[in-house]
């Protein structure tokens, strides 16, 4: 039996877990996640985190600012891996925390929690580099199939990685989707993880990303009204100021990877939702250790995946 507290402590120190430990942990967390519905209902207070993308030191910074798990409740909106140099440490820690404190840690699936995407954007390569074989990558990507799609805070705030889908008007429609598979190229599941809001439109348009849609104010209004909700929280898009609030305070994007790819120079944010559903953003800069990585002069194979 794996000693989770010990694993977590080692991960906080940046030590990698062994292949055997990861394999056991992934099996256990899969069992846990399999029980979660496509829409998980939680109560505030909770601290909501956007894309992290393998920026492990910035993840530690998040815990320093937002508080440690389990004292603080966390909801991560997906995109834990790819692009940063420490995707393995990042996803290992989050999965261990989820396993140890399932009530205090919620993890959504992002569009990067996918076999195809991680083969292109760095997670696969990092696993090969750090473990010498693809076993760990396989274990993690199997877990990704089980991550839930959305969270509802106090039956009022709807949280998803990307955005809305033309196929989904009622939240109940989400509940019947079969999510336990690789992200499809199109359809409701793909839309939820790939769509973006567009303040200049009213309905759905084609997305330049090649998956999902862009959606506008009428769509948002209708979705909130029909489902009796007050707000939508999502991530998926870089925000230079760390967050962006749209549609007259009906939708917020949270972005939690500061100085994205070690060069975008953006600020990141975390969002505190209090028991009365008051929303409060705290912005933060890259951690000093992340800044050290950014200052490295020559690109290594590890950081090739920014292109």
């Amino acid at each position: 039996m794996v000693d989770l507290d010990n694993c977590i402590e080692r991960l906080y120190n940046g030590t990698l877990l062994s292949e055997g430990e990861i394999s056991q942990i992934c099996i256990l967390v899969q069992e846990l996640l399999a029980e979660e519905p496509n829409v998980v209902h939680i109560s505030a207070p909770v601290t909501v985190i956007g894309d992290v993308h393998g920026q492990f030191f910035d993840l530690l910074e998040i815990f320093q600012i937002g508080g440690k798990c389990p004292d603080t409740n966390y909801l991560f909106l997906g995109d834990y891996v790819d692009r940063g140099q420490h995707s393995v440490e990042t996803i290992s820690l989050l999965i261990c925390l989820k396993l140890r404190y399932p009530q205090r840690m919620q993890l959504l699936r992002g569009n990067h929690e996918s076999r195809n995407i991680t083969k292109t954007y760095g997670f696969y390569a990092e696993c090969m580099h750090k473990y010498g074989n693809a076993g760990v990558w396989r274990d993690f990507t199997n877990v990704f199939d089980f991550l839930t799609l959305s969270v509802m805070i106090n039956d009022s705030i709807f949280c998803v990685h990307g955005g809305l889908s033309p196929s989904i008007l009622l939240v109940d429609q989400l509940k019947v989707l079969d999510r336990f598979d690789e992200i499809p190229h199109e359809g409701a599941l793909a839309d939820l993880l790939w769509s973006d809001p567009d303040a200049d439109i009213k309905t759905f348009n084609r997305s330049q990303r090649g998956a999902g849609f862009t959606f506008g104010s009428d769509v948002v209004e209708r979705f909130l009204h029909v489902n009796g909700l007050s707000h939508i929280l999502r991530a998926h898009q870089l925000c230079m100021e760390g967050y962006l609030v749209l549609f007259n305070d009906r939708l917020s994007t949270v972005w939690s990877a500061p100085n994205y790819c070690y060069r975008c120079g953006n600020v990141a944010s975390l969002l505190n939702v209090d028991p009365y559903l008051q929303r409060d953003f705290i912005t933060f800069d890259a951690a000093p250790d992340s800044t050290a990585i950014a200052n490295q002069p020559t690109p290594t194979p590890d950081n090739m995946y920014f292109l």
Partner: protein
Amino acid sequence: MSIDSAPPAAPGPSPGPHYDFQDAQSGDLGALAAIADAMKSDNLTDRLESLKRLGILALAMGEERTRDELIPFLDESIDDEDELLLALAELLGDFVQYVGGPKYAYVLLRPLENLAAAEETVVREKATESINKLVEVMDQLHVEEYLIPCIARLSSGEWFTSRSSAAGLYASAYGKVTDAIQSKLRAGYEALCKDDMPMIRRAAASNLESLVKKIEKDHVISFAIPNFRLLADDDQDSVRLLTVEPLVAITKRLTTDECKQYLGESVQKLCVDKSWRVRYMVADHFIAIATNIKDQELQEELLSVAISLMHDSEAEVRGAICTQLDGLADLATPEAIVARLQAPLQELVDDPSQHVRATLAKHIGSLCSVFGKEGTLEHLLPLLLRLLKDSFPDVRLNIISKLDVVDSVVGIDSLSQSLLPAIVELAEDKQWRVRLAIIEYVPLIASQLGVQFFDEQLSNLCMSWLGDPVYSIREAATANLKKLTEVFGVDWARATIIPKILAMATHPNYLYRMTTIFAITTIAPSVTPDIVRDLILPSLEGLVNDQIPNIRFNVAKSLEPLTAVLRKSPETTSLESSIIRPTLARLEEDPDPDVRYFAHRSLMAIDSPAA
């Protein structure tokens, strides 16, 4: 816990036979042959592994065979892999025990001499180090018979590699030979100082310091000083800069007059050297140089030199002289120092390089005692204040860390009037790490400036940190309160901070309620049992039923240290069974699994015999 995982794949192209060295200790000849074979293996890992076991092999072979067979074998099979050569060089320095003790140490010189001529610098350096180790245990006769010819061979070697290693061997040999040979050694060293290659002259310069420490006084004057001067005038700045440390060693051997007579001119030349790297070395060693020169006229000149280094065109040099500020005080009367340093210090506060300003901030406090109270108030305090507002965080922090030095000179009132607004500004800095650093200094400031000052000026600030949006600040703020309790005492805590902490227990924002619990838990060990009984427990009782599970499980956690405090007094120890245990038992039935877990854990901890 152990998990099976696949062994790492072996590096190198050819797998080769796997050498099992386990039997070597038994002297099994087959295994010894295996080690010897492994040393010839194509595989670098095998060769390295067998090298590490050489001690075992030597033990098995016995001292005589080790001397007669193993050492020559090592000497002949000089490898071309640097990693191996380095390992061998290190190993040989510790091999005296295997060859029969100090009287046979000389046999190790042959292979080491070859290694001292190796291409790779680290190998040569390690070989030299090992030879010097051996010399320590060798007796005079052996040094003269074996080491001296070795040094001679290396010194006249065709390649620069051997000559540069030779320079490192003179000092250790010098102490163990006759006068006649010492004279030859000095001649040999002088030749190295005059060598064509800068690399050799650099080696001669850097090793001159250790040689100076060994030679007799009159030879310091007749041999060391002329050679020092030669190297200090070298056309390569890389050679000149290495003469600063020998210079310091020389000053220690001379009287003040001798220093003035023989070194005055050289010192001045080095101080104004056209290469900034040389000037940097001078600046960095300034106090060491000046200390031994007690002549007033020279010292005044040195002070002028120091001031000119503060204006140096190169930031590194200006930074280096800043590290020597407190030594400068010895160079003149306090009045002279105050008069002459005012202007340069002002300029340094505005230096364009943040590193220089940070270094200045670190060391400027040491001038306070020289300037005296009036001088500090008039001249230094304004500078300190400006540094406290510097845009670079390290500058600000370096000043804060030296406040006690300033306080000891000017006293609390002056300090608080001037410094406090600056501290408050830092305490509200946008960068949370700057705020964090200020918090960490508060106990120090508080202990220096006293309880009244704290209550009037800093107390509100400390409480406001408990409500900072950043968790790490709140955490540091609670640790801060504990330290303050230790500084000012339990009665003070009871009267001033505990009521304020407990008031937060009913705050509508759950983060504040959480901070209350953290604060209570942190302070508990520092307060008395009656405080726990009368003030803390009643507050916690409200929180036990808090709506939010995170609050409830932190209450459960806090009951453990609180119980430890209650147990200290017979009056309060009964509360354990009347209040603590029932509360934890209730929490063990809580609907939330984490609450149940922490309640159970606290109960286990309270029950355990160690508690």
